[in-house]
C-alpha cells in the first residue's frame, strides 16, 4: 500500500539529480528518508530545525534568487502555524515554491488533535498564487510534482499516508484536470485524493444494483476542474463529494458554488465535521466513524442522495 511519506523522497531525489535549483528544507522530519537526496545533491538539503515559520520564510528567500525550494514537515505546523509566511512571503511577493506535507486530515489519528489538519485546503485556497494538489499514489505525486515544481505558484502537496490504489494512465494525470474514472447517469461521485478508494468500491457495489455512477476523481483542488464537474452535474443532477477535509472550504464548497449555476442540483458530502476529533485510534478507525469507507458512502447515497 502506498505511503507517500516514503515515496516523496524518491520523487524529489529524481528531480534534484537533474535540476540543480531544487533545494529541500525540512523541519526535523523524514531526515533519514532524504539521505539519498542529501548525498547526491550536496549542499541542497537542510534539516533546519523545529521552526516552521522561519523555514517557510527562508524558502521564499531561496525562491527570490532562483531556487525551487521544497519545504517538508507535518501539515498543521506549516499550514496553520506558518500561514502568514505562506501568505506574505510567497503569495504577496509572487514567489514560486513547494510545500509537501504529511499528516493532513487525521492521518495521525493516534497522536491527537494537535497533529490533525482538517482545513488545509480551506485555508490555503483563500490565497492567490497557490496551487493545491492531493496526489494519492506515487505516480500522481511523481507526475504532478514534475509538472509544477518549477512554476511561479506556491504549490502545496498534501501527501497522504494511504493511497487510493487505483492506477491511471500517466497521460491522464495533469495538473488542474479531473479524471473521469467511469461514466454513469444516476449520480455523480466526486472523490478527492485517498477517498477514491471508497468511492470506487461503492460505485462497483451500486453497479451490481443497477445504479450507474459518474465517478470523478480530483487530485488538484486548486485550480479545480469545474468544467468536468459541471458537465457531470448537468447530467445526473445529484452529487456526493467525498473528501477527508473539513465541511467548510473544501471541494464540497466549490461544488456547491458550481451547482448554483445550474438548476435543481442536489449536493451532499462526506466531510469532516466542524469539530475536533478528540478520539484516538487508527486512521482506519476514524474513517469508519466518519463514513470514509464503502459502507459509509453507500449509506449516504441510499439514505440521502437517492431519496
Amino acid at each position: 500500500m502506498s505511503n507517500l511519506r516514503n515515496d516523496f523522497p524518491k520523487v524529489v531525489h529524481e528531480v534534484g539529480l537533474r535540476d540543480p535549483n531544487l533545494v529541500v528544507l525540512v523541519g526535523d522530519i523524514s531526515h533519514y528518508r532524504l539521505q539519498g537526496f542529501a548525498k547526491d545533491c550536496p549542499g541542497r538539503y537542510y534539516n533546519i530545525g523545529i521552526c516552521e515559520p522561519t523555514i517557510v520564510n527562508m524558502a521564499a528567500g531561496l525562491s527570490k534568487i532562483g531556487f525551487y525550494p521544497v519545504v517538508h514537515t507535518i501539515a498543521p505546523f506549516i499550514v496553520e502555524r506558518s500561514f502568514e509566511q505562506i501568505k506574505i512571503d510567497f503569495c504577496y511577493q509572487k514567489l514560486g515554491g513547494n510545500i509537501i506535507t504529511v499528516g493532513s486530515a487525521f492521518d495521525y489519528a493516534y497522536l491527537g488533535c494537535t497533529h490533525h489538519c482538517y482545513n488545509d485546503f480551506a485555508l490555503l485556497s483563500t490565497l492567490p498564487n497557490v496551487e493545491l494538489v492531493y496526489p494519492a499514489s506515487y505516480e500522481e505525486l511523481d507526475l504532478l510534482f514534475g509538472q509544477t515544481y518549477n512554476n511561479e505558484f506556491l504549490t502545496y502537496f498534501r501527501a497522504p499516508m494511504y493511497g487510493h490504489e487505483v492506477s491511471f494512465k500517466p497521460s491522464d494525470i495533469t495538473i488542474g484536470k479531473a479524471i473521469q474514472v467511469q461514466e454513469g447517469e444516476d449520480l455523480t461521485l466526486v472523490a478527492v485524493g485517498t477517498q477514491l478508494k471508497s468511492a470506487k468500491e461503492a460505485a462497483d457495489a451500486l453497479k451490481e444494483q443497477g445504479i450507474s455512477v459518474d465517478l470523478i476523481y480530483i487530485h488538484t483542488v486548486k485550480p479545480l476542474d469545474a468544467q468536468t464537474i459541471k458537465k457531470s452535474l448537468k447530467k445526473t443532477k445529484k452529487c456526493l463529494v467525498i473528501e477527508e477535509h473539513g465541511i467548510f472550504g473544501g471541494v464540497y464548497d466549490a461544488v456547491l458554488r458550481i451547482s448554483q449555476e445550474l438548476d435543481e442540483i442536489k449536493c451532499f458530502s462526506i466531510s469532516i465535521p466542524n469539530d475536533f476529533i478528540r478520539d484516538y485510534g487508527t486512521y482506519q478507525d476514524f474513517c469508519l466513524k466518519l463514513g470514509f469507507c464503502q459502507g459509509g458512502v453507500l449509506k449516504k447515497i441510499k439514505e440521502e442522495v437517492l431519496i
Partner: protein
Amino acid sequence: MERREEGILSNNIINKDLRKKIIEVVYGAQEGHITSSFSIIDILSYLYENILKFDSKNPSWEDRDYFILSKGHGCVALYVILQKYGFIREEDLKQVSSKNGILGGHPDITKVPGAEASTGSLGHGIATALGVALGLRIRSKHNKVIVLIGDGESNEGTVWESALVGANLKLGNLCCIVDNNGSAAQVLPVPEMQKKWDAFGWETYAIDGHSDQEISDVFSKIKFEHHTKPKVIIANTLKGKGVSFMEGHGAWHAKIPSVDEFESALKELS
C-alpha cells in the same frame, strides 16, 4: 565580541537633507512613520553610499548586494534613499500612499524597484535574509546580505528562530543590523541585546547608529565570508533623531505633523 556600552549618542546630526525629505514625504502623504525612519536613515545612507553594490537601472542585477528592510514601517527612509540613487523618481515620492502611487505605508516588491522584501508584518525580513544568504552560498556567490530589524521587532519569535538558524548554518555572508531605538522598552523590553546575539552565536558589534565614523569603522571590520559566524550590529539609535520635539517615544511614532510642526521641523533641519 566587541562591546560598546549603550550611552549618550552623538549630538551631531547628519543627513539633514534626507531627513527633510522624509518629513516632506510623510507630510505630503499624510501617512508614515517619521521617527522610525529617522532612526535608520544614517545607516541606510552609509550603506547605499559605501557598502552595497547595486545597479539602479537593473535592480535585479544578480551580482548586487541585498539590503532587506525587515522593519517595513521605516520604509520612507528606504524610499528617499531609493530616489536618491535613481531606483525611483521624485514624482513617486509625491504619491506615497495615493491611489496612483507605487509607494505605500510598507514596501511591495512587485511595485518598488530596489525593495527586496514586502515587509510590514514584523519578523519576516530576517528569515528571508537567511534564505537569500543560504542560496548565495549554495551558488558560491559572494554578494553581501544585510538585513535591518528593529528592537521592537525583536519581540517576534521568528527573529530568535532566525538567530538560531543563522548561527547554526554559519551564514557569514549575512549581517543583521538592529535599529536599537528603544521601541521595545515601551512594552516588552529586550534587555542586553548584544549579549543575547552573542549567546546565540553571532559575531556582535555595537555602535552609535547616527555616527558615520562608527558605521564606517564597523563595516571595515566585518568580513562577509561563507561558513563563518553571521554578524550583527546593534545600532544604538534615537527615535526621531534630528528634530527635537519628535525625539523619543510616544505620540510621534505615527503622528503626522501639523503645518506649524512641519515648518518647525524643516527649520530645525536647515
